[in-house]
């Protein structure tokens, strides 16, 4: 919903939240359901209400548990039965500097201040440890916003007795904890309150009147931000950018003004602002965002513009370049298809409001109101499309991988026989039980895969680790390399044992290795492992979603028999393991 996209009108959202919620629920979306416990150190009611709107807009339908006023610590530490019963998928701890129980007095020695800091930190440390052991779920924790007054003025930040200094030190401890704990995420309200304006954020009226730690109007900013962390945890980040060129990546129109006439580079103010924007976009590659061009231009002119001597983004940085006169909605849809991505995984960036509107209405693709060129970075950045919660080594290499895919496509075109092409790829697969170094990637893949996904079950890293450590499960990951490069972990299969039957919980594969025989190699690996574990029959399940039609008949292809299909299209398949099983994969050399 456009009203919930950054930059949003907070007061409109506050006023209309009831009718906005109604509209969101009326949309035809396949929501994922999540249970979210909000444990607050102050009032959280409107935070919950407005979080719900942003989450619904991200395709997540939350059920909430809200602790009694300011009981965030007691609820966890004393096992409030309601919270235990609720079994949260995520715990959000909304605390603020109002919850810091003590601050240094001016007379204190450095040692005394350190001891106080230890005690304040320990209060939270115990809480997080207890949550980790009891709930095994991701934790989102606010750090602290700055105090709204400074007794020592500027020295408040440098003197160890200053509250600013104290909060900085506590925040650094929180950050250090986050670095060492996988399912723990800091919501940086220190930064959020700064961008919002600290005086407006911490308006004391809201604390003294209603026990809100922040002003009503700041709540949408807080709620939007936390919803971004949550959607990122559940794999709902955007994956790619589709960028316009003229007046978006540079000033002017390359077709009219010529390459030498466009504004980019250090010579003029306008050139500089476009350079900074291009640098910002190029950095997105490092976190795994795929860059593409979608421009109404002659291709020759588009490429020439991207090769401008002062430019930052080069044709080589982009995976798909569509520069022609077709409607942008068509170009974007084609780009998505070429990359095996869904259009909704894209963010479309264009200075022209009419183009944005077409892409939004035709493809339901997000296209931010980016404003004037000096606003571009802020709007895209604060929108949180690519919120990082789990940066894996694969993310940094993603653009490379897509580039390698483009080379594979070229090679494929040069063979008459598809089998010959597969042979020429010299593929090597690794198919093994889950291993510690891949836990992140396995969890990430389970959250990101929508199309090649039989059951659409999502797993956190903690759950993946539990499965890997248990004898009741059969778990396999598959990694695929070929002569163009390493695709990394691309497929994951999980089943749980039920006597001599193996019930398949999950079968997923990254679409970038479709039609490479990897699914057959995984089937072979599964059968061999199942056999070794004394399994006689494998039962496969297909649960339809809006996105996974491509695997409707997947189990038939693997040699399973359909045993049941209900009214909703849920299918149950069975595979009786034969005494002599013949491997289905013949193109991938498998290393076990």
């Amino acid at each position, binding site marked *: 919903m456009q009203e919930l996209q950054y930059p949003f009108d907070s007061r409109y959202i506050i006023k*209309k939240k009831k009718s906005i919620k109604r509209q969101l629920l009326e949309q035809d979306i396949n929501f994922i359901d999540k249970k979210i416990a909000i444990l607050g150190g102050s009032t959280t009611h*409107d935070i919950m209400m407005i979080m719900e709107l942003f989450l619904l807009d991200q395709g997540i339908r939350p059920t909430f548990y809200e602790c009694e006023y300011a009981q965030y610590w007691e609820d966890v530490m004393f096992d409030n039965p309601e919270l235990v019963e609720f079994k949260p998928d995520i715990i959000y701890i909304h605390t603020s500097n109002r919850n810091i129980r003590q601050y240094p007095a001016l007379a204190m020695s450095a040692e005394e201040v350190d001891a106080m800091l230890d005690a304040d930190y320990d209060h939270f440390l115990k809480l997080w440890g207890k949550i980790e052991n009891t709930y095994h779920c991701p934790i989102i924790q606010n750090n602290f916003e700055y105090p709204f007054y400074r007794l020592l003025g500027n020295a408040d930040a440098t003197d160890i007795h200053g509250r600013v200094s104290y909060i900085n030190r506590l925040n650094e401890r929180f950050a250090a904890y986050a670095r060492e704990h996988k399912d723990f995420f800091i919501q940086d309200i220190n930064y959020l309150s700064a961008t919002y304006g600290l005086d407006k954020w911490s308006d004391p009226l809201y604390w003294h*009147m209603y026990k809100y730690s922040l002003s009503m109007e700041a709540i949408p900013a807080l709620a939007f931000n936390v919803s971004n962390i949550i959607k990122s945890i559940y794999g709902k980040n955007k994956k790619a950018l589709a960028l316009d060129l003229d007046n978006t990546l540079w000033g002017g129109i390359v077709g009219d003004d010529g390459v030498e006439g466009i504004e980019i580079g250090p010579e003029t103010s306008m050139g500089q602002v476009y350079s900074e924007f291009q640098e910002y976009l190029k950095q997105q590659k490092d976190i795994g965002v795929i860059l593409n061009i979608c421009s109404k231009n002659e291709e020759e002119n588009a490429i020439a513009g991207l090769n401008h001597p002062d430019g930052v983004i080069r044709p080589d940085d982009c995976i798909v370049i569509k520069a022609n006169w077709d409607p942008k909605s068509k170009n974007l849809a084609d780009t998505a298809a070429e990359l095996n991505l869904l259009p909704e995984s894209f963010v479309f960036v264009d200075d022209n409001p009419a183009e944005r509107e077409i892409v939004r209405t035709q493809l339901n693709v997000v296209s931010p109101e980016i404003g004037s060129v000096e606003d571009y970075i802020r709007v895209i950045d604060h929108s949180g499309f690519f919120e990082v919660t789990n940066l894996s080594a694969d993310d940094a290499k993603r653009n490379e991988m897509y580039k390698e895919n483009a080379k594979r496509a070229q090679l494929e075109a040069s063979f008459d026989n598809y089998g010959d092409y597969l042979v020429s790829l010299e593929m090597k697969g690794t198919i093994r039980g889950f291993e510690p170094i891949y836990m992140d990637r396995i969890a990430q893949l389970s959250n990101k895969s929508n199309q090649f996904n039989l059951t659409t079950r999502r797993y956190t890293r903690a759950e993946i680790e539990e499965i890997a450590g248990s004898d009741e499960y059969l778990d396999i990951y598959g990694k695929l390399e070929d002569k163009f490069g390493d695709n990394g972990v691309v497929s994951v299969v999980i089943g749980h044992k039920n006597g001599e039957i193996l019930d398949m919980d999950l079968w997923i594969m990254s679409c970038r290795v479709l039609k490479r025989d990897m699914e057959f190699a995984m089937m072979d690996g599964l059968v061999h492992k199942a056999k070794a574990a004394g399994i006689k029959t494998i039962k496969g399940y297909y649960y339809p979603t809006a996105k996974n039609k491509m695997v409707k008949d997947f189990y038939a292809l693997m040699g399973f028999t359909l045993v049941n299909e209900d009214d909703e299209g849920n299918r149950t398949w069975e595979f009786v393991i034969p005494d002599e099983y013949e491997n289905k994969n013949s193109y991938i050399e498998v290393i076990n």
Partner: protein
Amino acid sequence: MSREEIYTRLNEVFRDVFDRDDITVSDETTAADVEGWDSLIHITLMDAVEEEFDIRFDMKTVVKMKNVGEMVDYIIANT
């Protein structure tokens, strides 16, 4: 702005916040007269009224306000 004009706009605000088209408030209306007007929605309501009339209620005013009439008095005095 006349009292009448204020009421026209104020009723719109109430209808938006409560998401109900049948609400009409008057000088004597208090929280007890409107279904769902609890302390939580009250905060939203105050914010929405502030926005509508481009005013700010200070704490002293909020604490004292007894009914919608007093709210309207404050709006008249501050716009």
